[in-house]
């Protein structure tokens, strides 16, 4: 095989190896065992691991775009351009010999290119530069200056020691200034790049958070819907309707009417983001009417809200869940039954909705956790920390659940 071709294939293999490594890190897969083979390879893995996700993804795209002959062509182009620039330098300032000028330009440009690539894809790491590293770069600049100067002197037939004695200090200072300028320029780039990355990361995080919240909202509303029209409720109510109808009782039609109203508004309440307090209280009224027909004198209720407050927009399902809790965990388990009071009031810019029952009380509330957890979740999703739910004992017994909502 053509040795050049073999070299190219070796280069491609090396490149593919790195792309595979980047892909593995990106997908969170374990890194191939071959990467633990040498200290150099282990260090490479560490370097990539320290990059942020975005940086790594962008670096991977960069490597992918310039993979194979594309990268080599670019590099070749860069070298040719450097040579041309070197010749221009030589023609402008004849004190630089042609080879000197070409070597100098190549060195500076390639160093800067490497610096830019490192700063671009490792901005965070670059900014956390230690004083030791700083000193190292400055010394390197000085050393470069001295070596270059010495070589130049040699090419002019001057003894290197004489040259260093003559121009050493100047060259060392010039070299370290060049190092500092290089550091400052690349550091500035890294700083800008870091800000851009931070903004990008923040945007991505905000987007994924929004996504998560909206999924959670839909899920929690689904759960509430399922809890609302539970089969137990439906079958018991239908049984009551049937009994009343068979007896020819006029309440049968009324009960059916309440059931229809309840079903219609609880199905509908899944759709809109917001409803009015009035509509929600209508749903609650239907529900409590149904439960009253079923539980008889064990349940009494009253709903109290001014016409002005009834116009307030609220999230659906919050209040009805509290009322259902009061019936299920307060009144139903309590042999003597009790009263449920639903009241709306306002205080400055807060709407206060209260569900008070005189049932069995909080000490004996097994299983009421889920409904309340749903309400809390809904509140947090819909209003953040601007809303709250308080629970306390009613006197002489029972529970008061109080919702604080921002008036919108």
């Amino acid at each position, binding site marked *: 095989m053509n040795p050049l071709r073999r070299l190219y294939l070796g280069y491609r293999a090396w490149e593919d190896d790195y792309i595979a490594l980047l892909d593995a890190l990106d997908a969170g897969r374990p890194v191939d065992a071959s990467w633990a083979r040498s200290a150099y390879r282990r260090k490479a893995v560490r370097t990539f691991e320290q990059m942020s996700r975005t940086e790594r993804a962008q670096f991977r795209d960069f490597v992918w775009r310039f993979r194979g002959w594309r990268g080599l062509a670019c590099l070749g182009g860069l070298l040719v351009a450097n040579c041309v620039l070197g010749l221009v330098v030589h023609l402008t300032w004849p004190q630089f010999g042609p080879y000197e000028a070409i070597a100098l330009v190549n060195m500076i440009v390639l160093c800067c290119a490497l610096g830019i690539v490192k700063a671009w894809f490792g901005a965070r790491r670059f900014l956390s530069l230690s004083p030791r590293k700083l000193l190292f770069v400055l010394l390197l600049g000085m050393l470069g200056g001295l070596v270059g100067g010495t070589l130049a002197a040699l090419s002019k037939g001057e003894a290197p020691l004489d040259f260093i004695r003559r121009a050493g200090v100047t060259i060392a200072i010039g070299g370290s200034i060049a190092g500092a300028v290089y550091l400052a320029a690349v550091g500035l780039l890294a700083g800008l790049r870091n800000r851009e990355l931070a903004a990008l990361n923040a945007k991505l995080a905000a987007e994924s958070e929004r996504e998560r919240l909206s999924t959670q909202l839909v899920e929690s509303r689904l759960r509430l819907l399922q809890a609302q029209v*539970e*089969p*137990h409720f*439906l*079958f*018991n109510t*239908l*049984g*009551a309707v*049937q*009994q*009343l109808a*068979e*007896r020819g009782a006029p309440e049968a039609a009324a009960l059916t009417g309440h059931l229809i109203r309840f079903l219609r508004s609880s199905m509908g309440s899944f759709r809109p983001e917001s409803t009015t307090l009035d509509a929600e209280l209508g749903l609650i009224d239907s529900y409590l009417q149904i439960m009253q*027909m*079923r*539980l*008889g004198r*064990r349940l009494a209720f009253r709903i109290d809200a001014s016409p002005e407050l009834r116009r307030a927009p609220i999230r659906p399902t919050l209040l009805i869940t509290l009322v259902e809790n009061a019936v299920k965990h307060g009144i*139903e*388990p*309590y*042999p003597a039954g009790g009263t449920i009071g639903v009241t709306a009031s306002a205080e400055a810019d807060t709407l206060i909705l209260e569900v008070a029952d005189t049932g*069995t009380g909080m000490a004996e509330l*097994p299983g009421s956790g889920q409904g309340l957890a749903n309400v809390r979740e809904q509140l947090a999703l819909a209003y953040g920390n601007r809303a709250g739910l308080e629970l306390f004992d009613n006197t002489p017994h029972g529970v008061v659940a109080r919702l604080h909502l921002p008036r919108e």
Partner: protein
Amino acid sequence: MGARVLVAEDEAPMRERLVQQLGEVWPSATIVAVADNGLDAWDAYLEHEPDVAFLDIRMPGMSGLDLAARMSGFGVGQATAPVRIVFVTAYDQYAIEAFDRGAVDYLLKPIERGRLARTVARLEQGTPATDDLAGVLRALRASGKGPAYTKRIKASVGRRIHFIDVDDVLYFQADTKYTRVVYSGGEALIRTALRELLVRLDPESFWQIHRNAVVNVRAIAAAERVDSDRTEVILKGSNDRLTVSRAFLHLFKE
């Protein structure tokens, strides 16, 4: 003589319906008691000793499942209740699956007349129960659907509040509105009525053996037949003897 029936259902329309339907499909039966909560159902059971009990599962006071556990002397394994139990439920998926597995009879609300008639026919044949009631109740308890039982009891003795571990209790005895607690460390009076306390005690560990006595199963040393209609329980760690009422004699049969 026709069967004596207890109906326990908390919702009025359903209760009326069941009573009415029973009257139609089972005219020979007598409904001796109708209860609208678990506590009253238990009292009615003690008072009337019915042959058949229709028990709603979800009821205030005590659930139908707990009532069944207490009626059947839950915890002794193959003990069978002296009463045939039919559960009534609108929708309790776990319970229904367990009933089907254990061949326990149940009715779905709203109750269909045909289904009720088949149940009644089975009851009238008077064949002994072949269901696995104890197994079903145990499975439902293991699934964590059951109530939470009290582990400790607070009782004031003089100016002190004693914390009594229910496992240390030998027996509870009703004393008008109070309950006397006899435990390994002495005795105390608590302000809770026995029937309300009973709800919070694990039916596997505590048996009611008389209208006014609930005993810790682990404290029972022996049961002695004193004469033809009197059986007494002899306790470990106490010289007290407790009378077993007729309704609970089945707990002490071999």
